[in-house]
């Protein structure tokens, strides 16, 4: 499952991050690494950004980036 396909409010675990968007490193350093639990807080319409909650931080991600995150 990709992060951007989830419904709002779901809590999931990050499995892997697909390479190719050029932003993997920034995801990693913000703490979005395999194994962490994230909650999808919001999805902006028209393929806008998504907001995820990770521990006690909120991180806004572009839709394409969210699509590169494999979760379960």
């Amino acid at each position: 499952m990709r992060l951007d396909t989830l419904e709002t409010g779901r809590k999931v675990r990050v499995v892997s991050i697909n390479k190719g968007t050029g932003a993997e490193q920034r995801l990693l350093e913000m703490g979005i690494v395999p194994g962490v639990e994230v909650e999808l807080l919001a999805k902006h319409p028209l393929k806008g950004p998504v907001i995820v909650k990770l521990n006690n931080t909120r991180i806004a991600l572009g839709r394409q980036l969210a699509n590169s995150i494999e979760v379960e």
Partner: protein
Amino acid sequence: MKAIIVGNPNVGKSYVFNRLTGQEVFVSNYPGTSVEINRGFLTVGNKSIELLDMPGVYSLNSGTPEAAMLVEALKEPPDLIIQVLDTVNLERNLVLTLELMKANLPMVLLLNQVDRAREMGLRIDSQVLSRELGLPVFPFSALTGEGVLDLLEQLAKGVPRSKKVQVVSLETVECQGCDRCACGPVLSCEGVNLKLFDQARLLAGKTTTRIERTQMHWLEKAQNWIDQPILGTVLLLLLAYLSFVILLQFINLSEGPISALLDPVNQLISEAIVELLPAGIIAQVLSKAVPEGIVIPFTIVMPAMLMVSILMALMEDSGILPRYSVALERVSRIFGLSGQAIIPLTLGLGCRTPAVVATRILPNTAQRFITVALLSIVVPCAATLGIMASVIAKFNASLVAVAGALVAVFLGLSLVLGRINTQQEEFIYELPPLRIPNWHNIAIKVKARFTGFFTEILPLLLVMSIAIRTIIESGVLQLLDGLGPITRVLFGIPSEAFVAVLLTVFQRYLAPLLLLNLTLTPREATIAITMVVISLPCLPVMVMTIRELGLKALGKIIGMGFLASFLVGIALNLILP
């Protein structure tokens, strides 16, 4: 002795720095407030410590300019590293700790915002962390001052090196690239780096216990509302609209009382000049120019600058400002910008000079260039807004036409420029928690931004007012009448008004001074003020642009500015009845 303050973005480094040095560096509630190193001194006992407040980084291997600055600073080893951590997000913050520990320097950890962590129901055992890492760890709050004394005591005693980590030289911390992964630096070499994350998670788990809370803090509730896609966007747009209404009302309401106060003073100045100076051209010029040079800044520019700095400081400190970048990400994407560009563009409504520096939070040079160009040419700063309002009011010019032209140029320019940014960087931004604005932070900012009025704007406007009055009285403008037919055909404005447009080369908000002294029809005033507002960056912005992006970029921006201004003049001349 030299110490560096380091940490993730938006954990409160600058706040800690201010606390320790007594300085008043700007503090905001969004990642990327400090993009340069702040320097200060701290005296503990008989030790004088030079403190460097470094810009925030998530990792030493980020590959960002900020990370490069930090690695550079570590190569000339400081005597002490003070890492500021966000207690609420220990896990991620500890990754940087583990990276820094490889430098094997004396280091202390400040678990900042510990008061907020407690409010959120977290219990922190700093002793455990201290034992695990072999470093002094202090629960800390730059806001309340908790932990400051403990830190000072430790600094007086001296900080030992940790014996817990293997010594790894800095060279190996830096990336050598690897063939195991496409993304290069150490961070992505799973074998090396994900281990750090596991270790950090383990440490954070040992240190933090979560107590069940029965109630959600109202700020968290507000945050949940504002982070909702549709409702949040509506709320944010309403808030922006409300801010503009407040700004305009404030300018309107304050003009009366301020003029009432100034009128007698000006009368006096004017009379004194006539009295003291020998009759003649000089007395004639000064007796008109000085009062004008005082009235306009005080009644028009000052209220606008004051209100804008207050509103901006509130947006920055509450954590609302970065929310706009999420809500407007879709829109900015059309223009080849990522959502973060909203932050410098909004800051530009206050003053464009710091806004140009703030473009550093953008991911690439192309985006920075687009944003700086938009800032320089279209976005009206507080001073410009104030003076624009006065010209519109005096000549009964069309606000709709001026605003419409601004929006049209903004859209047109960004669409054209958006094409140069072929590489669409992915949007990723940490949203700061909402908080109640801290009045002290607000006061520092408003004070600093507002003193610019007295140190820069007032003297400049006064001098220019005298210069402009001299030009008018001397009759030089009549010499330009030859240009009249040309400017009338092209832009529908008299040649004198065109001089005002050319004056923007010196300082944009000075140009309307000349307009105020002319007799213009509403139509002429509308075109002239629009051409003035859409034109060139002011001198301070030019200097900053050279510093940040180079002379060539500035040249392009100036060229585009003139072009935009002339095109808008011609277009309005054709469109307006």
